[in-house]
C-alpha cells in the first residue's frame, strides 16, 4: 500500500499540468493552484524521504506485474533525495514566477509546461527501468522545448532550434543504445541489467555500450566536447525558465550517470571511469574559460554550469564511497545555487535593463539586498567554507586525492578559483563603481525565491553534520549495487 505513494510525485504535477491547460485565461487562479500543488508535492516528498530513510526503500510494480517483467518505480535513498530537491526548486520557481510570469506567458501555457517538466524530472529520478528513463527524458525535454520558446523572440527561435536538434539526436542515440543493451542482455530493468552485466563480467561489447550511453548522458549533461549547445540556449528564455533548466535538466543527465555507472557498468573501472575523470577535468577548464571570456551576465552563469558538472563527474569517476557522497552533496548544492544565481542574474538584468556587464555599475546603492545576496551566492558557488559548495568539493577532492588523481584534483582547485573570479567580476562590475541609471525596481518575490534557495545552501553547509550521514548512507547503497538488485528483484 505504501508503495503506491511513489507514483504521486509524478502523477500530481502531471495531472495539475493537464488541468491548468484549461485555465490558461485565469492568471490569478493558476498561480494559486500552482502554489497549492508545489506545497502538496513538497510535503509528499518530505514524507517519502522520511519513510525511505527510517524504514526501507519502496518499489511500485505497476499493474501487479512482478519485477523484472513489469514497469517498476523505485524510491531508494538517492531517488528520494533527488525528488525532494526538485520539489524545493519547484517551490522557489513558483514564488519567482508569481511576479515575473506575465498573464501573456500564462496564456502560452507556462504553468502546464512547468508542471510537466517537474513530472518528467521526478519520473526520471524514480524509474527503475532504462527504457522508462528514456520516456521520462522525453517528457521533460518536450516540456522544455515548449518553455524555451515562450516569448517567441528572434534569438529564442534561433537558439532553441539548436537545443532541440542536439537533444533529439541524443535521444535517438539513447533508444538505439537501449536496443543494443536489450539484444545483449535481454532486459531493460536496471536491477536485472546490473545482475546480468555482473554475471558476464562486462565483456567488450558491454563496455562499448557503456561508452555509447555515456555519449548520450554527456550530451544531456553538457560535458566536453558535447557542451556547445548549452550556454547560448540557456540564456534566451525568461529567467525562471533558465533557472529551471540550469538547476534541473543537466542534473538529470548526471543522476543517470550516477545510477548507470554504479549499478550496471561498474566492472571495468580502469577503462570507463578513468575516461570519465579526464572528461571531467577538461569540462571544468573549458567551462571556466567560457565564463571568463564573456561580459554577458547570464552567459557567465550559464557557463558556470559546466565546471559543476565536471566536479560531479569527477566523483563518479573516482568511484569510492566518499567521492560518491561528494557527488550527491554537490548535486543538491548545485541545484539550489544555480537556480538562485539564475534568479539573481535575471533580477539584475531587469534592474539594469541590459545584460552587458560593461554597461552596469553602482547598483549597491539602488538595491543593496540584491547586491549582498549575489555576493553570498557567489561565495557559495565557488565553495568558500562554511557554505555548502565547500562540503561537496572537500569530499570530492579528498576522494580524488585518496585515489591518487593529483593532477585532476589540481585542475579542480584551479577551476574553483577561476569560478570565484568569474562571478565576483559580476559583483564588482554591477554593484561597485559609478551608478548607472537603473531601468526598473527589483521585484520582491524574486528576492524571496533566491533568498529561500540561498538559505537552504547555507543550511546545507553549516548543518553538514546533520545531512552528511543521510547522504553517506545513500552513497553506500550506490557503491554496493547488490543492495539495490536484491531489493528490487526480492530473491
Amino acid at each position: 500500500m505504501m508503495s503506491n505513494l511513489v507514483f504521486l510525485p509524478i502523477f500530481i504535477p502531471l495531472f495539475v499540468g493537464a488541468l491548468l491547460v484549461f485555465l490558461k485565461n485565469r492568471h490569478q487562479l493558476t498561480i494559486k493552484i500552482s502554489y497549492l500543488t508545489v506545497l502538496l508535492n513538497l510535503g509528499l516528498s518530505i514524507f517519502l524521504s522520511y519513510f525511505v530513510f527510517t524504514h526501507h526503500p519502496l518499489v511500485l510494480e505497476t499493474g501487479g506485474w512482478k519485477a523484472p517483467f513489469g514497469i517498476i518505480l523505485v524510491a531508494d535513498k538517492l531517488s528520494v533525495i533527488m525528488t525532494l530537491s526538485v520539489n524545493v526548486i519547484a517551490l522557489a520557481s513558483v514564488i519567482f514566477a508569481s511576479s515575473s510570469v506575465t498573464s501573456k506567458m500564462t496564456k502560452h501555457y507556462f504553468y502546464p509546461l512547468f508542471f510537466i517538466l517537474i513530472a518528467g524530472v521526478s519520473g526520471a529520478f524514480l524509474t527503475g527501468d532504462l527504457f522508462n528513463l528514456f520516456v521520462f527524458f522525453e517528457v521533460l525535454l518536450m516540456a522544455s522545448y515548449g518553455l524555451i520558446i515562450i516569448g517567441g523572440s528572434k534569438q529564442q527561435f534561433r537558439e532553441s532550434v539548436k537545443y532541440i536538434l542536439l537533444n533529439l539526436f541524443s535521444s535517438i542515440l539513447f533508444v538505439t543504445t537501449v536496443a543494443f543493451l536489450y539484444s545483449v542482455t535481454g532486459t531493460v530493468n536496471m536491477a536485472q541489467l546490473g545482475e546480468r552485466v555482473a554475471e558476464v563480467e562486462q565483456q567488450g561489447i558491454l563496455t562499448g555500450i557503456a561508452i555509447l550511453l555515456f555519449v548520450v548522458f554527456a550530451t544531456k549533461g553538457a560535458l566536453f566536447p558535447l557542451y556547445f549547445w548549452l550556454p547560448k540556449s540557456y540564456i534566451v528564455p525568461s529567467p525562471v525558465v533558465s533557472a529551471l533548466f540550469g538547476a534541473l535538466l543537466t542534473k538529470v543527465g548526471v543522476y543517470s550517470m550516477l545510477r548507470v555507472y554504479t549499478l550496471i557498468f561498474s566492472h571495468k573501472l580502469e577503462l570507463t571511469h578513468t575516461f570519465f575523470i579526464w572528461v571531467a577535468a577538461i569540462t571544468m577548464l573549458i567551462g571556466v574559460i567560457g565564463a571568463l571570456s564573456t561580459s554577458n551576465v547570464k552567459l557567465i552563469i550559464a557557463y558556470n554550469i559546466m565546471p559543476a558538472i565536471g566536479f560531479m563527474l569527477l566523483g563518479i569517476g573516482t568511484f569510492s564511497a566518499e567521492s560518491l557522497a561528494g557527488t550527491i552533496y554537490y548535486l543538491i548544492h548545485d541545484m539550489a545555487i544555480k537556480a538562485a544565481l539564475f534568479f539573481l542574474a535575471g533580477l539584475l538584468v531587469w534592474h539594469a535593463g541590459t545584460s552587458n556587464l560593461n554597461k552596469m555599475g553602482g547598483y549597491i546603492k539602488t538595491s543593496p539586498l540584491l547586491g549582498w545576496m549575489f555576493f553570498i551566492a557567489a561565495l557559495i558557488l565557488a565553495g568558500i567554507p562554511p557554505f555548502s559548495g565547500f562540503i561537496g568539493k572537500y569530499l570530492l577532492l579528498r576522494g580524488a586525492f585518496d585515489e591518487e588523481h593529483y593532477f585532476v584534483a589540481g585542475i579542480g582547485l584551479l577551476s574553483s578559483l577561476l569560478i570565484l573570479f568569474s562571478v565576483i567580476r559580476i559583483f564588482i562590475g554591477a554593484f561597485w563603481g559609478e551608478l548607472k541609471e537603473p531601468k526598473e525596481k527589483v521585484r520582491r518575490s524574486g528576492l524571496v525565491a533566491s533568498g529561500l534557495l540561498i538559505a537552504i545552501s547555507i543550511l546545507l553547509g553549516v548543518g553538514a553534520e546533520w545531512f552528511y550521514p543521510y547522504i553517506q548512507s545513500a552513497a553506500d547503497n550506490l557503491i554496493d549495487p547488490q543492495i539495490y538488485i536484491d531489493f528490487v528483484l526480492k530473491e
Partner: protein
Amino acid sequence: MEIVMSILAGTLFAAGVYLLLQKQLIKIVLGTVLLSHGAHLFILTMGKLNRGAPPILEKGITEYTDPLPQALILTSIVISFGITSFLLVLAYRTYQSNKTDMMDQLRGTDDE
C-alpha cells in the same frame, strides 16, 4: 533477415546524419526523421525477427515472438511523431522571424 534489416537501419542512420550536417533547416528536420526510422527498425531487429508465432510465453511453447521491442517501438514512434511535427512548426517560425533558414546565418552575436 536480421543482417538485411541491420544494414537498412545503418543506411538510414548514415543518410540521417548526412542530412543533419546540411545547412538548410528543412533538410535537417528530414534527417531527424530518417534517424528515428533507423532507430525503430533497429529496435525491431534486436528483438529477433520471428514469424507466425504468438507473443506469449507459456509452459510447453518453445516458439514465441518477443513482444517487448514492439511495445518499445510504439512508444518511441509516438514520441518522434510529436517531436517531428513540433520541429516542422518551429523551423517555419524560425524562418519567419529570422528571415533565413540557413544554419550558418543563424549564429547570432554576443551583444544582443
